[in-house]
Structure formats: structure tokens, C-alpha cells
């Protein structure tokens, strides 16, 4: 098992005819992901190295039955592509696109909730999801990860690679690595992914990597205390970041502690979650806890 992407994944990619879109879609296929199609309006009937391209998500669905969509289109078209994929019946949508307007993200989040409650959106502005040895959807450099029992959920891409690589070097692998993205309105939160890792038999320990801003880490702390029995190790980036050029008082009124790294680390530690001060320390704690819980490291 793993979470979200695995051997049953049937992937279609919006923006597959673009330079980045085709590069990463084909990379995902080389890794073993079942890439069934692509969507680019106006380019239906073409193919990208044998992958059929369709004009719309409805056409792609009819011909190839994808269960997973990857969104790689420019920011101004991304919201509509996500909603179109959901309307066509795709159950998992992974949006890599960076720079989508916040109001579009808000519209997507609330429309999915109202009209397509069964559809899960991960991202936008995320590196995607990798289940080592099974499937990769997105831009995570898969060669640094091996299959194993650590579940990783992170707001940042490169930081995930840093932590995952240190765990791999210590001889441990990952069940899945899920990048939820750092945008103001992400489709999936830490809580959503923690729930999946808690239910996943393969996952024995969860690494949560957060950063300053918002209150997703505080909400994760509450959820861990109530519903997660597996060990969780956390990392928060941004202790030395200067306070953002905050304008007016409204932001401070809402976030209270203003989403600082110190406040987030305190919230997690108050619920018994161990917080590493550097990516290296996170990996060390994770390895130490895994060593204590299982007799032999899983590679």
C-alpha cells in the first residue's frame, strides 16, 4: 500500500504538449506510472511520444478513463482545467502550476466542496506525489527515494527532498511523499493527508514538514492529538524569516500568533509531536524512532 498514487493510478496530464508538461509527464511514465492521456484544447488527435492528446477532460475520460489528473497548464487557465477534470469525473487532481491567483484557488476549493465532494485536489503549487517503487505524479526527483515505511507530507518541495534524502541515506525508505504546496488555499491540508497515512498499513512513521504563515500546522497538531496513533516527527522552516510586510491589522487579528515558526513548533510540541530543529535532526529523530519500533530497517 501507499497513499493516493500507486500501481492502480491511471494518469492524464493537462498541458502535456508544453515543454515542462511533456518533460515531467514522460518522466513519470519512465518511472512506471501508467500515463494514459493528455489534455490540450485545440490539440486533440495529436500524440506526445505515443500518449494520446484530447481537446477536453470529457474526451480524455471517455477514451482513457483516467483516475488521476496532473495540472501543468499556465496559472490563468489552471482553475478551469481543475474544475473541468472534476466535472469529467477524475477523483484525484494534482496541480503543479505555480502562481494561480488566490481568488481562483478559493473558487476552486469551494466549488469542489459544493459540487464534487468526492474529488480530492492536492496542490496547487506543489511538487506532486511519489510512492517509491509504484508511481510518481509530479516533479519529485524519484531517484533519491526508496520504498519503505515513512510517510512524508510537506508544504515545500526542495525541503522534502532534503529530509527524504537524509532518511534514505540512513537506510530507510518512504511509503509515499505528498507535497501539499505552499499556497494560501491548498486543496488538501496536512490534516487530510495525515488521515490517509494513519489508515495506510505500510506507513509506520509520519514526517510533517511545515513553514511559516497560515495555521495549517496548528490544526495538524490538534488532529494528531485526537486521531493519529502513529509517531509523527515535524520540521518547521522560517524561524529567522523576518515578519512579512504585514499590512493593516486584519491579518494579525485572524491569525493571532501571526503564523510564526516558533508558535507552530510550540503548538506541535504541546501535543507531543517531536520537532527537529534542522532537516538533519528530523531525519535523526525519525530513524531513531523507527529503529526502536521495528527490528530491521526496511529498504
Amino acid at each position, binding site marked *: 500500500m501507499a497513499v493516493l498514487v500507486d500501481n492502480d493510478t491511471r494518469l492524464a496530464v493537462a498541458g502535456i504538449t508544453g515543454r515542462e508538461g511533456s518533460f515531467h509527464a514522460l518522466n513519470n511514465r519512465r518511472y512506471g506510472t501508467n500515463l494514459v492521456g493528455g489534455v490540450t484544447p485545440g490539440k486533440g488527435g495529436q500524440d506526445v511520444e505515443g500518449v494520446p492528446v484530447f481537446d477536453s477532460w470529457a474526451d480524455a475520460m471517455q477514451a482513457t478513463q483516467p483516475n488521476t489528473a496532473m495540472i501543468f497548464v499556465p496559472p490563468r487557465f489552471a482553475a478551469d482545467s481543475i474544475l473541468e477534470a472534476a466535472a469529467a469525473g477524475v477523483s484525484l487532481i494534482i496541480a503543479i502550476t505555480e502562481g494561480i491567483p488566490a481568488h481562483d484557488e478559493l473558487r476552486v*476549493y469551494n466549488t469542489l466542496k459544493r459540487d464534487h465532494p468526492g474529488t480530492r485536489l492536492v496542490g496547487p503549487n506543489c511538487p506532486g506525489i511519489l510512492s517509491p517503487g509504484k508511481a510518481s505524479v509530479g516533479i519529485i526527483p524519484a531517484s533519491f527515494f526508496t520504498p519503505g515505511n515513512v510517510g512524508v507530507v510537506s508544504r515545500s*518541495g526542495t525541503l522534502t527532498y*532534503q529530509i527524504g534524502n537524509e532518511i534514505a541515506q540512513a537506510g530507510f525508505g518512504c511509503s509515499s511523499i505528498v507535497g501539499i504546496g*505552499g499556497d494560501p*488555499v491548498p486543496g488538501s491540508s496536512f490534516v487530510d493527508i495525515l488521515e490517509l497515512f494513519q489508515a495506510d498499513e505500510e506507513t509506520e512513521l509520519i514526517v510533517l514538514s511545515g513553514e511559516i504563515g497560515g495555521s495549517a500546522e496548528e490544526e495538524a497538531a490538534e488532529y494528531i492529538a485526537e486521531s493519529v496513533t502513529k509517531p509523527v516527527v515535524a520540521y518547521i522552516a522560517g524561524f*529567522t524569516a*523576518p515578519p512579512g510586510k504585514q499590512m493593516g*491589522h*486584519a491579518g494579525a487579528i485572524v491569525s493571532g500568533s501571526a503564523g510564526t515558526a516558533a508558535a507552530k513548533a510550540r503548538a506541535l510540541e504541546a501535543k507531543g509531536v517531536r520537532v527537529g530543529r534542522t532537516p*538533519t535532526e528530523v531525519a535523526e529523530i525519525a530513524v531513531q524512532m523507527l529503529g526502536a519500533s521495528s527490528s530491521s530497517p526496511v529498504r
Partner: protein
Amino acid sequence: MDLLEYQGKQLFARHGLDVSAGKAVTSVEEAVVAAEQVGYPVVVKAQVLIGGRGKAGGVKLAANPEETREHAGKILGLDIRGHIVHKLWIEHASDIATEYYASVLLDRSAKQPLVIFSTEGGVEIEQIAEESPEKLVRHHVDSLKGLSRQEALQIAIDGGADDDVREGVADALVALYEVWDKEDATLAEINPLIVTPERQVKALDAKVSLDGNALFRHPENQDLSDTENEDPIERKAKEQGVQYVKLDGNIGILGNGAGLVMSTLDVVAQAGGQPANFLDAGGGSDAEKVKQAVELILANDAVKAVLFNIFGGITRCDEVAKGLIAAFGEIKPAVPFVVRLDGTNDVQGRTLLEEAKLPNVHSASTMNEAAEKVVELAKQTEGAGA
């Protein structure tokens, strides 16, 4: 993207919010002419992106041209907590009976817009929010439907607005929501929202933040914000599409991905150093972009040592190495560099650097080692008086 008061008020007026007549000026002479046009008495207001302007002497009432001349002369060029006043807003003075507070913002936690209203307006709103939160009405709006007139009226009533201005407050809230919605704002705040003795409801101040990612929908808003007070290096970075924030320390930092760069700042600080900047070279940086980034970092004279911390995903380490070698060829930096390359094509990148034998470039194999090394080198350079 944060707007100056007068820019926010222009957006307010565009959506039907009542604001006083005024003019933005950049000289004493213009201020005197503008004051005649808007009519005395006027308020001379410093246009800077920082609160507490009044307390710093940046807001003054003028009853005649002599007073306008005196105040404008004193306020122009004033340093308000690091923000130099380059612009004034000359506004017809309003009589104030009552001060309210109103704002609309994106509530990231609820994933909906939030309207906040209070009859306790004025400068101390943050304190009121903390000490007596019951004096603030918070109302989440269904973003797919928008704020209805009926909802707005209920907010005015729940917040305890005076009976005779409830309708006026509701109109103002609907207009403020429209500003937030139609202009792709992340924050639209009025403090104070005043009631005049004639029982008119008016925005006396404006704080608006626009979403930079949505500017393609608003070409007319492209040139707003306080460009004169931008740090010159930050402005150049923005033009080049690089995320750069200037900090107070002496260790230049380059990394890829915001999370990893933030983490790098933390690890350097834990090693006893002080970062001079945040610089996210972004995904897929090529040699040219890396060279530009080195130039940005070294444009800050305080930098005594530089740390490159790269974990390549989309970014290829050999491209980063090529960029660094090209930069050394042209700039010949006087300060030491510590380079840590991991990830995609890391072996090629490290080999390129080794073969180039760049003067004063040290390699490190882990992030922690790199941080310790750069802190040590910065201390040596600082000590040598470089």
C-alpha cells in the same frame, strides 16, 4: 502587493465607497495648489506603507496656504520608521462624529472571505480585538455567492452601528466586499470608517493588498504600490523574476525553493551567523540566472561570505556550477563562497567546480557543515576588515 492610502482610496471610489476629495502630490508647490483645489481645511497626509503615521508627525491639518506649505515641507522627506515620505495626499478635512472599523480579508483557515466590523474604530483596533473580541463582528461570506445587501445590513446591526447609519454602513460593506472581490485583493481595510455630523459614512483611510498573481486581470493596477521606497536590490530582483528579500546580516544566501532557503537561513542562524538575504533561485535555474543571482547577492556591501545551498530537483547542479563559474569569470568576487550541491546531476556539478579551481570557493557535503563553514569564513573576512 501593498497599496498606498491614496491608491487604495482610488480603488474604493471606483467601487462606490464614499471618500473625500483629494490629490496626490510630490512637492510643496503642488501641495499648495492641490489644497486650493480640494478646498480648506485640508489634511496633509504622508503616503508610506507603515502604520502610526499620525504619531510620527506625518498627518497634519492645514487651514490656509501658509500652514499647507509648512506641513508639506516638514512631512516630505520625513523618515517614518525606515520609510521615506516621497508623496503626500492632500484631502479635504472631514468632521468626525464616530469612528468605526471594517475589513474584508481571505481567511486561510476557513477558506472563505471574512468580513470584520466594529463600532470601536480608530488606531487601537488590534488591542480591542485582543482585549474585548466581542466588540468585533466576524462574518464568513460564501465566496461563490458574494456578500448580499441583507447580510451586510445584519453585520451592521450585530455590530451595533447607530440606527440612522445602518443602511450607510451596509452600503459601505457591500462596496468594500466588491473591492476585495473585483480587484483580486487579499485585504481591504478601512480604519477608521467615519460617520460625519451629517450622518454620512465615509472611508477616512485605506489599506489594500492586491494579489500579485492576479495582476494579469488588472493591467490598470500594474504600477501601483510604493516603488520609491523599494530596496534597489529587491526591485532589480523583481525585474529579473527572482525572489530576494534583504536582511540585516552579512552572509549571502542562495538556495532553490522557498522552504529550503528558509531552512538554510535557520541553520545558518543556529550556527551563529546572520543571513544578509533570502534568495530563492527557483526551480529549473540555468547558468545565466545563477550568475544574475550572484550579482544581486554581492550588490549588498554588507555581505562577507556567501552560501550556495542547492538540492536539485528540477534544478540541475551542473547548471548551478556553470553559473557560478561564469559569475566568477565576470565579477571576481572578493568574498569566500561555500557551495553545497546535492540532487540532480550533483556529481557533474561538483566535478565542474573542482576542475574550475575557483579562488576562495569551498565545498561542503551537508547543509549543517556548509552553514558552519560559511559562518566561520564570514567571521574571518569581517575580522580581516575586508
